[in-house]
């Protein structure tokens, strides 16, 4: 810690963020990207000025990460906020001290897009979406009247509510018992394929209407339908990649849930929890309908105040135990690295994060062509999936560390095509035939 006086400005990490700084690594970047594709050219000078203004409305984002004796913590970052030309791979590892002038997020631009890449310790997808929408609203000079009741967009002149920067996990914590339950290791895709740290993305654009039609046929939500599609593809790939049935592992997809609406919170920091949804192919082959049933039952069974409250209790209680609380950070760091494997990466086959359909206010609808959302994959879960919808289309984005293997993406997308859904793909991969 720099000075005693700086203790007043010290901002502790929220309860779900504490796992990210000790476990960040080249192949475990914990970075996600939100991107807005525009139909007008971006003016970088204007964007830089607007970004500085907007950041004042998000003081809890204007921080840098520091390592204390007991915990990591945030301190206000006085360095200038810079914007960067988007010319590298999405969701790559960035140095937390030097990568973005000490900030834990990067504002990136191309001729026709504005993106933010965020280190997950700072906020989650919903918090970042609020920042991006505010940035766009200011960039296109939207008035309060035009914005209307959009809960994501904040105005610089409005006072910063204390709840916006709070650790909502602490507020909604209720002590519960039966905290930790371990799970067996899940199936992981293509562990023998070549990989590197240059994140390869495949973006699929699908009509929300068509996807709704399909999911309505089965009386499930779009998220549930997408999760089932991923599980179906994983099941098929496990059958191809694992020779003996007795070596099959459960297939689990981790689905982050934005719990702000459930707990009525307006925090812009992390306030989402993960629900693991899956099947166990050791019990036999699951038809798509059966997978959908499982997903529906498991997801709906977990997303309720009591179930999520238990997870909050698990997050918060761990931090409150004196032995953990007062253990030096040098001890906590390695433990967290190991625990993140046992309670995180190992037990999930992959992650699907769906931000949902994003409503854009007023004239933003006319200038923003599409939104995209990307998650960084990691060494264990080498393919990640993220979805976001706007203007009648959903962007289903796969990010992968695998250099050549796109069998998973192909299985998922062709399954949609076979069900009569038009899928438009784009990629940053250098394709062999090109």
């Amino acid at each position: 810690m720099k000075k005693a006086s700086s203790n007043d400005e010290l901002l502790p990490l929220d309860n779900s963020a504490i796992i990210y700084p000790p476990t960040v690594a080249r192949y475990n970047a914990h970075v996600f990207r939100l991107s807005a594709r525009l139909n007008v050219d971006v003016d970088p000078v204007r964007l830089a000025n607007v970004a500085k203004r907007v950041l004042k409305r998000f003081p809890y984002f204007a921080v840098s990460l520091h390592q204390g004796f007991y915990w990591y913590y945030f301190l206000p970052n006085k360095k200038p906020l810079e914007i960067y030309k988007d010319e590298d791979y999405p969701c790559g590892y960035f140095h937390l001290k030097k990568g973005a002038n000490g900030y834990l997020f990067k504002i990136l631009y191309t001729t026709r897009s504005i993106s933010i890449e965020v280190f997950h310790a700072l906020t989650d997808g919903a918090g970042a979406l609020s920042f991006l929408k505010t940035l766009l609203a200011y960039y296109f000079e939207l008035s309060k009247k035009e914005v209307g009741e959009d809960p994501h967009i904040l105005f610089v002149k409005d006072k910063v509510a204390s709840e916006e920067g709070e650790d909502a996990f602490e507020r909604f914590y209720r002590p519960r018992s039966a905290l930790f339950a371990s799970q067996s290791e899940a199936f992981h895709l293509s562990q023998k394929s070549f990989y590197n740290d240059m994140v390869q993305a495949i973006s699929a654009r699908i009509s929300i209407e068509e996807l709704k039609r399909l999911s309505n046929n089965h009386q499930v939500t779009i998220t549930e339908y997408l999760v089932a599609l991923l599980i179906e593809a994983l099941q098929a790939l496990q059958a191809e990649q694992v020779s003996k049935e007795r070596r099959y592992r459960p297939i689990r997809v981790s689905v982050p849930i934005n719990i702000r609406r459930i707990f009525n919170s307006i925090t812009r920091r992390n306030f989402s929890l993960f629900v693991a949804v899956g099947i166990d192919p050791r019990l036999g082959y699951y038809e798509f309908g059966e997978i959908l049933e499982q997903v529906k039952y498991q997801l709906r069974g977990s997303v309720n105040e009591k179930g999520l409250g238990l997870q909050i209790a698990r997050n918060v209680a761990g931090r409150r135990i004196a032995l953990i609380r007062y253990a030096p950070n040098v001890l906590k760091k390695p433990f967290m690295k190991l625990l993140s494997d046992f309670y995180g990466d190992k037990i999930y086959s992959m992650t699907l994060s769906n931000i949902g359909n994003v409503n854009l206010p007023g004239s933003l609808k006319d200038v923003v062509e599409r939104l995209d959302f990307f998650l960084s994959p990691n060494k264990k879960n080498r393919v990640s999936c993220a979805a976001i919808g706007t203007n009648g289309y959903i962007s289903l984005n796969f990010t992968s560390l695998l250099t050549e293997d796109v069998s998973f993406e192909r299985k998922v997308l062709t399954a949609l095509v076979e069900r009569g859904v038009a899928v438009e793909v784009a990629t940053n991969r250098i394709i062999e035939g090109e």
Partner: protein
Amino acid sequence: MAYCVKCGVKLEAGSTACVLCNTKVLASKEVIGKIEYPLFVKEKAKGKSFYPYFDKTRKGIIELIIAFMVIAEVTLAITAIALQGAFSPWLAMLAVAAGGLYILVGLTVKPNYPKVASYYLIITALLIIGLSFFIKASLWPQIVLLSLAFYWAVGVFPWLLSKGKRFWSFLVVSFAIALFLVLLDALIDNYLSWSLAIALPTYGVIIVSLAFSAIRIRWGKPSMTDIILSIILSSCWGVVAGDFFHLRSIGSEHFLTWGFSPFIVALLLLIILLLTATVRKVRNFFTTRLT
């Protein structure tokens, strides 16, 4: 914009192949289209891809061991300070450091025998040097250090040389054994007693015998029986030479005492080997003439 005929997906304008199956698009330029602002930047990465040596889990284990080492060292130091000289922490601290380093070498050094063995030998040598300070013994630490150096020369160094340099490794190993015997003698007795009179001549006999066997193995076509007999023969010569030089060093009138039986065995084996070789030569001579 074109569609992939195999996957059925619609491709981004300008794409000439499918991203999912690499199938080439066989359509006109008008159908493929042109994209002014692609969704992704397709430039090659600025730097090379980077593969860190330690993954997250291994890094965690390494950090954990270092943390425990530091905590143990600090605890020992504090205990010693608190007990005001009643407890000497140095030995325990040394043991903790050595133990930690042994584990860390296994986790950090690439699994390469000469490298790992060299590091382990260095740590052991440092541990012995440290121990010798506390125990105030002089002889056995020196012997152990000498033995470690000897092991490195005999058991590690040959693996550092390439396959084409086997002769050099044989020379180094032979010289190291001789040097070890001399130095061991010098350390134990403070002067050269048994090494020059008994050990080195005996060793010389074994080397010569083994060299003959090696020459046979290299240029002949020895059977497994030949190799085993050669080894037994060299061992017998060694025992005989040991007895012989020992008797000379004590001024005995006897030619051999307990080495007599191995001497007979060695002679018999030598005769058998010579006979076998001769019979083979003769048989070869006639068989080649006949055919």
